[in-house]
């Protein structure tokens, strides 16, 4: 096959590469550069170089450590619940029943919605006076009195996690379902002949068959949830107080409302480095397990 000039693929890739360099790599470099300076938004001409000063300040900042802790809770709890619920949904959708196609289409709805709408939906559901959760909770005797879910430091994090679980479990449901359908039926039949019950064949056939899909989807979701801040921004704005501050939200608030770009950039760089470390160690471990 004659491929034409060897430069052709590069010409075809040039626009996408140029856009990536200009809109992603240059900004990332710029953020790193900004993080070494003291940049205040309303004082654009003066940008004293402070070296690692912003990073030293980050490590001494109690709110950074608090946000990091919240981020860990946010990611671990949200992704585990999304995964658990998504796996149950996928296993159920993999069975045969009359309205399966309808169920499979509808389960995806929360995933299609904009984060702002999801924030709106759950702010309305959790409203102190009129929210469905408090109304039904009190009516059915589950709650003694209505709870101001988003205004109390002890319940706000649980409330935003509930919203992000709602948003994300369909992603796991559809990806894991696709993975389940790729497992050859003969593997189950072989397990059955060997006398395996439902539980044993789940452990020995389903889980190993799903392992690559689980690894990839968990990684994608973990990155996404770690970086996402719009849902929290819409529902609580990081409050009450600092009780729902996560790292990306704190970086955003510092840069945006606080107009302190240098410090906000340093926080964003720290977040990226932490995330990279987690992703790389995860990928290395997944790779090693795949070989074993």
């Amino acid at each position: 096959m004659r491929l034409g000039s060897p430069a052709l693929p590069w010409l075809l890739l040039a626009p996408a590469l140029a856009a990536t360099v200009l809109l992603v790599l240059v900004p990332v470099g710029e953020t790193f550069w900004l993080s070494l300076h003291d940049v205040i938004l309303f004082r654009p001409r003066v940008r004293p170089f402070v070296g690692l000063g912003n990073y030293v300040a980050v490590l001494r900042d109690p709110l950074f450590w608090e946000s990091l802790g919240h981020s860990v809770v946010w990611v671990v709890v949200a992704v585990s619940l999304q995964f658990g619920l998504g796996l149950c949904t996928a296993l159920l959708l993999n069975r045969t029943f009359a309205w399966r196609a309808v169920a499979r289409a509808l389960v995806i709805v929360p995933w299609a919605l904009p984060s702002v709408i999801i924030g709106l939906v759950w702010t309305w559901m959790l409203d102190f006076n009129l929210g469905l959760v408090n109304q039904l909770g009190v009516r059915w005797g589950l709650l003694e009195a209505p709870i101001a879910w988003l205004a109390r430091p002890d319940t706000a994090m649980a409330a935003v996690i509930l919203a992000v679980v709602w948003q994300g479990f369909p992603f796991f449901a559809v990806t894991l379902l696709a993975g389940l359908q790729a497992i050859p039926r003969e593997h189950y039949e072989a397990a059955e002949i060997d006398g395996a019950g439902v539980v044993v064949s789940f452990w020995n056939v389903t889980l190993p068959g799903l392992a690559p899909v689980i690894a990839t989807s968990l990684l994608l979701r973990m990155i996404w949830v770690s970086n996402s801040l719009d849902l929290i921004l819409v529902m609580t704005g990081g409050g009450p107080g600092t009780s729902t501050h996560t790292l990306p939200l704190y970086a955003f608030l510092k840069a945006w409302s606080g107009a302190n770009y240098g410090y906000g950039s340093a926080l964003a760089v720290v977040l990226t480095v932490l995330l990279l470390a987690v992703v790389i160690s995860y990928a290395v471990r997944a790779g090693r397990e795949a070989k074993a």
Partner: protein
Amino acid sequence: MDESFLLLFFKKEALFPMKRLRLFLGTELPLAAILAFGLVPFIWMAVSSVRPDEELTQSPVRLIPGALTLVHHIELLRRTSFAANLRDSFVVAAGAVALGLLLSLPAAYAFSRFRFPGRRFLRVQFLVVNMFPVVLLVLPLFFVLRGLGLLDTYVALIMGHATFTLPFAIWLMTSYIDGIPADLDEAAMMDGATGVQVLRLVILPLVVPGMVAVGIYLFIASWNEYLFALMLAGRNVRTVTVALQMFIGENEIHWGLLTAGGTLVAMPAVVLFLFAQRHLVGGLTGGAVKG
């Protein structure tokens, strides 16, 4: 020895209820509960948007609406800037689709049909780029666009949205072009067509379904986006997500207007998603399932 032949001695009808009950309790009931969790909050918003104010502010809340009305939708479109916000969102999303297709189609063709040094690295690179937190990108983009005098314009948001949609758009498009038999290219090459002619005359007509799927992804991603729309625009160009968030932030929340706005904004995304989900999910899981 298989005992299933014993089943022949039972009447089919007698066996049926037990099996039916097991299916109902073991599969249909739990799935219905999950679907309720997934759909009730959304339905509750949509239902709230068509109830009169008296019902919205009354406690205890009546679950079944007594009267239906479109006053909130009408007031939203007539008295607020929401119609203009819808237009802004639409223009930005349409621009994001055009730019995304223009960038991803040639790139995907190159990845699918050419073997060149650095191909693997570049394919992975496009996905790794997606890992950078949006906050990391949006802060410097703000400065870059301010320097170019593009802040608060359609162009700013269209470019901003390309940053995070491009990797998946290229990935999805590549899988579509991979599905077009290479024999067709080769036949055209034999007849003396150049690489660009093959792309235009052979690939382009056949990849229309792929372009529709990628286009829908680009549209939804742009339509739903909030943070770029907030930081890179917001005054002259205000998308619906930013406008809605501003309504939420107001001191006195008017739930009728808010739920009406939420329902209007959610509709295009939900309808397009239901329409295209098979293609999008296929592209998303293609890589994962193949390992």
